[in-house]
């Protein structure tokens, strides 16, 4: 199993005048609504335990008000917890003093914001170099790195514009360049693409995936859009009313939703576009071996079906990315899976 980069233990956050005074109530099972109505405190997060793996894109999902932003802001301690601990690379973030915390934020984390949060009085290139400037790097270094990342996100030529002169998509590219220029291991993105038009959002997702291919950061990505979560997430954590209800791969979430809330979340998803070949393959080589087609284990069922039909095969050989055979899928299994998926997509029919 991969290394754990960020570990969140028994994290509880209560907003209000005296959070500690109602902590016991919360631990004894008082729900969010009662806490608000009777005790005038807001339950932001309750007893979250979450391990986020190194080099993964970890998506945090949930409805509005479920505590996503609150959770991500605990990782770099922009919000102080009421109880619990946050361990990053084995270090307890809550034990750090002011200076250590600033060093930690500079070296280990970088953040991209929903509304971009650029500095309106700085040019694009100065914005991109903002994080490095906070680290007191010298001018040439900042200039060089800011330029490099602006080029990388496709903003060459806009260096001397001001943020207000750019479209939303371009502003968020600046936000991304600013975060990447810091060269931090952890990239935190709070609904970073939610404010963008669908087409531009899709471009940005592709850009992020492309960058991740070479950078291998630990990315904590918040969204309330399931399609986005499935597209980019290696793992998805689902929050409901401040509680973690499920954490797993997209496959896990789709095939084995932890409760009704998650089930309703995933109800409309076309599972064949998400489910991977490796999750339906088996070890036995089919009897009828006239015409085989080969697919990668990471292809979706949708693609497998398309490949099989268009190449007129009779069964599928599944390979890993090194070209090694890892399993087989016969026509019947594939047909059965697709049929099941399709009928599951219509929850009323089930």
């Amino acid at each position, binding site marked *: 199993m991969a290394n754990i980069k960020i570990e969140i233990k028994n994290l509880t956050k209560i907003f209000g005048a005296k959070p500690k005074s109602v902590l016991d109530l919360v631990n004894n099972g008082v729900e969010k609504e009662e806490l608000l109505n009777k005790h005038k405190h807001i339950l932001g997060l309750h007893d979250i335990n979450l391990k986020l793996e190194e080099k993964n894109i970890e998506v945090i999902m949930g409805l509005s008000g479920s505590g996503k932003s609150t959770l991500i802001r605990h990782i770099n301690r922009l919000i102080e917890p009421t109880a619990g601990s946050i361990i990053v690379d084995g270090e307890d973030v809550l034990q750090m003093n002011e200076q250590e915390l600033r060093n930690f934020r500079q070296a280990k984390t*970088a*953040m991209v*914001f929903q509304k971009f949060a650029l*500095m*309106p*009085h700085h040019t694009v290139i100065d914005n991109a170099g903002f994080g490095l400037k906070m680290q007191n790097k010298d001018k040439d270094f900042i200039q060089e790195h800011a330029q490099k990342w602006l080029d990388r996100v496709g903003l060459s030529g806009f260096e001397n*514009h*001001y943020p207000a002169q750019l479209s939303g998509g371009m502003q968020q590219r600046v936000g991304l360049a600013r975060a990447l220029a810091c060269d931090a291991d952890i990239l935190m993105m709070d609904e970073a693409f939610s404010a963008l038009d669908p087409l531009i959002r899709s471009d940005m997702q592709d850009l992020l995936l492309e960058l991740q291919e070479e950078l291998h950061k630990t990315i904590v990505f918040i969204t309330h859009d399931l399609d986005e979560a499935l597209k980019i997430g290696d793992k998805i954590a689902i929050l409901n009313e401040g509680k973690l209800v499920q954490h797993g791969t997209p496959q896990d979430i789709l095939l084995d939703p932890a409760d009704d809330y998650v089930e309703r979340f995933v109800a409309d998803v076309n599972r064949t576009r998400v489910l991977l070949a490796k999750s339906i393959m088996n070890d036995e080589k089919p009897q009828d071996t006239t015409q085989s087609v080969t697919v990668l284990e990471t292809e979706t069922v949708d693609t497998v079906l398309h490949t099989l039909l268009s190449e007129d095969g009779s069964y599928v050989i599944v390979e890993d990315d090194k070209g090694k055979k890892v399993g087989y899928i016969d026509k019947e299994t594939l047909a059965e899976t697709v049929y099941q998926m399709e009928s599951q997509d219509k929850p009323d029919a089930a």
Partner: protein
Amino acid sequence: MEFLEEFPAIGRVALRDLKKTIDGGFREFTRTYGEDIEGFFDPLLQFMVWFEKLLLATPWPLILLVIGGLAWLGSRSIKITVGSVLSFVVIGYFGMWEDLMSTLAIITVATFLCILLGIPLGILMARSNRAQAMITPVLDIMQTIPAFVYLIPVVMLLGIGKVPGLIAVIIYAIPPIVRLTNLGIRLVDKEALEAADAFGASHMQKLLGVQIPLALPNIFAGVNQTIMMALSMVVIASMIGVAGLGVPVLRAISNQYLALGLMNGLAIVALAIIFDRVSQQYGHRIQKHRQGQGHG
């Protein structure tokens, strides 16, 4: 029902004694510390004298050149620049050049000191709610109390002259810059600040790199108002010995010289308009980045 008809006031004797005690106490304070306080303000006095002499000794064409240059740097507008220089020429032509220079000197020094004291005070208020709660009523008093009332202790303490005049001007003119610095910093976009925090900015980096630059339009509006209020104090300041355009106005009031009063009054107005337009244009220019739409 005598009780209801006459307000139950403190007895006349008691009141007189109270006033006497206060006056006596302050006189005592003046006797004890007056000299030290005067000594404290001495460098300021020297500076003001030097600055006024400098302005008076400088050949008038050079002053016009500097005024034109500053107006241009501030406003980047030919109209405002020419207007400023022309106003100075007209004021000088009607024999008010020396008074104009004196007024310019005190306004410049007063504004400079208001900025020097007011901005840090505004920053302090923005950082601490307690400081804000304590300073706000003081500012309210400074702005509403009739100037003549605080002139009394100032004059008792420092006598008549430039320094008490300057202090009176500052007391009256400093509130807007303090208030607007505080307001400007408090209004700074929370998200920009959060971003600065997230990238590990220190308090200083946040203050100098984010809060003050983003509050600058408001701070600048404060500077503008401070200048206007300082100018409006010119006449009152001349009552306690500050030279300048206020002195002839005062003379005009007591002797009913209509023309003299009008001319000097208009000169003050002209100065106010110049300061206002130039600083406003400058304020607009430093926040240009906020407007730009379109690419290029």
